[in-house]
């Protein structure tokens, strides 16, 4: 079994103050609203980079079953950009998300102050192994 390290990128739409980030990468044909982890494998998030024009809270969420009509998402981690700028986090110990049934997935959502939508960006270093 070989692993794959992928840089995944997403951004806010600049018009809404909350939403789900569409994630994309050089290996993805198109953006996706969540990443389903291959059965029996693990997603390790080694780094995060957040940047933007204003206050933004990015939340990493995980679900045990992305195949149902309304998955239940639970928060795993949050990164808050308090104002215009950039935040870069390298993980010596990664966030680990496991796939036990093949239906597990993760996604990133954003939230911004009411009435202050702004463009913000997130990059994740995701290793699938």
């Amino acid at each position, binding site marked *: 079994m*070989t*692993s*794959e390290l992928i840089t995944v990128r997403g951004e806010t739409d600049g018009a809404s103050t909350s939403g789900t980030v569409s994630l994309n990468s050089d*290996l*993805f044909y198109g953006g996706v609203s969540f*990443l*389903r982890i291959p059965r029996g494998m693990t997603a390790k998030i080694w780094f995060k980079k957040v940047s933007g024009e204003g206050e933004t809270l990015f939340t990493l969420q995980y679900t045990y079953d992305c195949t149902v009509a309304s998955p239940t998402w639970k928060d795993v981690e949050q990164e808050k950009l308090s104002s215009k700028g950039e935040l870069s986090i390298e993980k010596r110990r990664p966030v680990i998300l496991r796939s036990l049934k093949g239906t597990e997935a993760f996604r990133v959502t954003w939230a911004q102050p009411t009435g202050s939508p702004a463009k913000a960006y997130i990059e994740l270093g995701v290793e699938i*192994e």
Partner: protein
Amino acid sequence: MDRVVDQLGLVIEGEYLTCFIPSTSRAFVFRVKSRVNRRYEELFYGPLPLSAGDTLPTYEGGSVSVPADGVIPARSYTEGLSFPMSGAYDEGDMWYLSEDYRDRVFHVLQYVTPGFLRVDVEIPVGVSQGRFQKDKIVTGVDKDFGFSRGFYEIVHLPRIHYGYRYGNDTNIDLYASVRFVYGEYIVEIPRSANLIFDILTRRIPSHWVTMPLNVMDPTVEMSLNTVYGITGFPVYRLDQRDAALKEYESLLRGVKI
């Protein structure tokens, strides 16, 4: 540890390569006389041979269209794929050789990107080889087990078309590509029954590749007979030396290389 392969995982010239066939408990023993692509073992093939518009089955039971060349759609798997190459002996299958090339085998290490894609192989193309509890369950990339991810080591024998299958169990349409590290070996089958027995009882070092042959298709058996004159040497126990040597000597009389 005896060193019969180099840092690439390919057999060093003069060493032995053993292709074990689980379905028959037989094996081919080759001595690698030379590696004709020495120093040029890497072949970046590029995107998987999938064309926009191709239809693939899905894990949910339906089918899906390939959105662009080289893209494996989310939740889909391929049927047996061959790798086309212009100018090759068979332009639709770059690893295929006829029996006229019986002194050659390709030892192929396949690296798939992304590395989490499922991989298995059909031998011959169209005949899946994954089995659980004899024939009770057929396994493979379309099932929950019976595949590897991102890597496959195999030996391509002449006169057999192999079909590679890839599975994408994520929800993402993925650009997929393949890199091969391969050796085009000129081989011979050792003419000493003693030597073959010692290799098959692991007293002489050899690089063993267990072929994914859990079902011996009649066409494969016929191809092996046509190419080599035999379907392999039975693997005996250490205490069966006399019986083994007798059979090996008989088989060696019919060997074509």
